[in-house]
C-alpha cells in the first residue's frame, strides 16, 4: 500500500458510494416501482408536517394593492377546449356528504351571501407566480350552513372539467382566505378561469384550486386529486 494513494479496498468503498449516486442521477429516474411507493410515503409525511406543524388556521397570506396585478394570469384546464357548464341556467353547487343539511347553492344564492375580495399572489407548482384579485364566498360560510358531521375530515371538490377533482384538509378549507370565487379582477369569472365558480385560496398551489365546480362533498376518508393521484404533493400548501 502506498502512503498517498488508494488501495483496492478504498476504491471498493468509493465505488459503494459512487455507484448508487450515479444510478440515482441517471436518466431522469423517477424511482421505479421499487422506490416510487417510498417517495409517496415520504410525501405523505411532508403533507402531515405541512398541515399539522407549519399551517396556521388563521395566518393570512400577504395581500397587495390592485395596482400590483400581473399583466398575465395563465389558466389551465384538462379538457381539450374551454369547459362550459352543460346547461348554464341549471348550474348549481351541490354540497353534501357527511353533513346535516345537504344544500344546493344556485348562483343567486351564492351571490347573496357575504363576500370576500382580495388581491393576492398565485403560486403555480411550476414555479411561476402572478398577482390577481378574486372575490367570492368564504368556504367557511358555506361549511357553517351545511353543518358537517363530526366524522367529516376532508372536502372533495368536483368539477365539470372532465374528471378533475381535488381533496382538501378541513383546516385549509376553513382558512379565512379560502373562497368559492365568482369574480376575477373585478369582472365575473371567465370560462378560462373556471366559470361559473371555482375554489380560490392564496394558501395552496394552483392545482389545488378546483375550477368549474359542481360538487363539494364532506368525507371521512382522504380524497385524492387529479394531479395528486399522479404524484403531486397532496397538501400543496404554501
Amino acid at each position: 500500500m502506498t502512503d498517498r494513494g488508494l488501495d483496492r479496498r478504498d476504491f471498493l468503498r468509493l465505488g459503494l458510494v459512487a455507484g448508487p449516486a450515479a444510478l440515482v442521477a441517471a436518466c431522469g429516474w423517477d424511482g421505479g416501482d421499487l422506490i416510487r411507493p417510498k417517495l409517496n410515503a415520504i410525501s405523505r409525511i411532508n403533507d402531515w408536517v405541512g398541515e399539522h406543524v407549519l399551517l396556521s388556521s388563521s395566518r393570512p397570506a400577504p395581500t397587495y394593492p390592485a395596482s400590483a396585478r400581473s399583466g398575465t394570469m395563465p389558466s389551465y384546464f384538462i379538457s381539450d377546449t374551454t369547459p362550459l357548464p352543460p346547461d348554464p341556467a341549471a348550474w348549481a353547487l351541490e354540497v353534501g356528504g357527511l353533513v346535516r343539511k345537504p344544500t344546493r347553492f344556485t348562483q343567486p344564492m351564492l351571490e347573496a351571501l357575504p363576500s370576500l375580495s382580495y388581491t393576492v399572489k398565485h403560486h403555480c407548482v411550476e414555479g411561476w407566480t402572478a398577482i390577481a384579485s378574486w372575490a367570492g364566498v368564504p368556504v367557511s360560510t358555506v361549511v357553517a350552513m351545511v353543518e358537517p358531521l363530526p366524522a367529516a375530515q376532508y372536502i372533495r371538490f368536483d368539477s365539470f372539467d372532465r374528471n378533475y377533482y381535488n381533496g382538501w384538509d378541513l383546516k385549509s378549507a376553513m382558512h379565512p382566505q379560502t373562497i368559492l370565487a365568482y369574480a376575477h379582477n373585478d369582472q365575473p369569472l371567465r370560462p378560462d378561469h373556471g366559470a361559473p365558480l371555482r375554489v380560490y385560496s392564496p394558501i395552496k398551489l394552483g392545482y389545488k384550486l378546483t375550477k368549474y365546480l359542481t360538487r363539494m362533498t364532506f368525507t371521512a376518508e382522504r380524497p385524492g386529486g387529479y394531479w395528486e393521484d399522479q404524484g403531486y404533493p397532496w397538501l400543496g400548501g404554501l
Partner: protein
Amino acid sequence: MTSSTLPPVENAESPDAPALVKRHHGLVRVAHWLNAIVLLGMIASGLQIYQAFPHFGQKGKVYPVPNPFDSGHFPSGFPEWARLGGWLAGGLQWHFALAWPFVLTGLIYLAFLVFTGEWKALLFRPRDVKPAIAMQLYYLRLRKEHPPQGKHNALQKAAYTFIVVLGALSAITGFAIYKPVQLAWLTRLLGGYELARYWHFLAVWIFIGFTLLHVALVFLVDPASLRAMLTGWYRGRFPSHD
C-alpha cells in the same frame, strides 16, 4: 507525485514515513459521503423542477437577474442525465424526500462539531485571515515554504466554514419557496418568493464550483486526505491535528 511540486511541511515528524494518524470520526465520514449523494440528488431533482419554469420572476415579467439558463437563451434545457424524477411531480417527490436527510445530516454534523470541539479545527475566525493570505501566496507561488498548519490550513477553514453556511442558506431559501405563506417573514427577508427561488438556484452553481475545486485540490495537494475521509486514517503531509 506532489512532493516534487510541493515540499513536505517542516513539522512533519519524518518526511520519509509520515505518521499514521486518526483523522476523521466515523460520523464525519458517513455524513460527508451521505451528503455527497444526497446533494447530488437534490441538485438533479432541483434541475428537473426548474425545467417547469426556466425563468425567474413573475409570469410574463422576468426579473433582470443574471441567468444563463433562462430558456430564452438556453432552449435545450438541462440534459436528461442531469435531471432526476422524470417529470415535475417526480422531481418534487425526490427533492422533498431528500431534503430530510440533507437537513438532518447537516444538523447532526453540526451538533457533532459542537459537542466534540472539532469546530475549532474548522471554523474560520478573524485570526485566520493572516494565515489565509500566507496560504494563498504559497498557492500562487509567491511564497516558498508551506505555512505551518494543523489539521486544516486557514484557506481550508474558510472553505469548510463557507460550505456549511452555503448548505444552511440552501435549506433556508428552500423553506422560503416551499412555504412562502406560512414562512412569509422569511420569504420577505430574502426579497420575496421569486428572488428566494433565484438564491436557491444560485446556491447550486456555487455547490458545483466548490465540489470541483474541492476534488481537484484533494488530488493535487493532499491525495492522502481522500483515504482519510474513507477509512478515517491519514498518512500524509499534514499529520498535525490541532
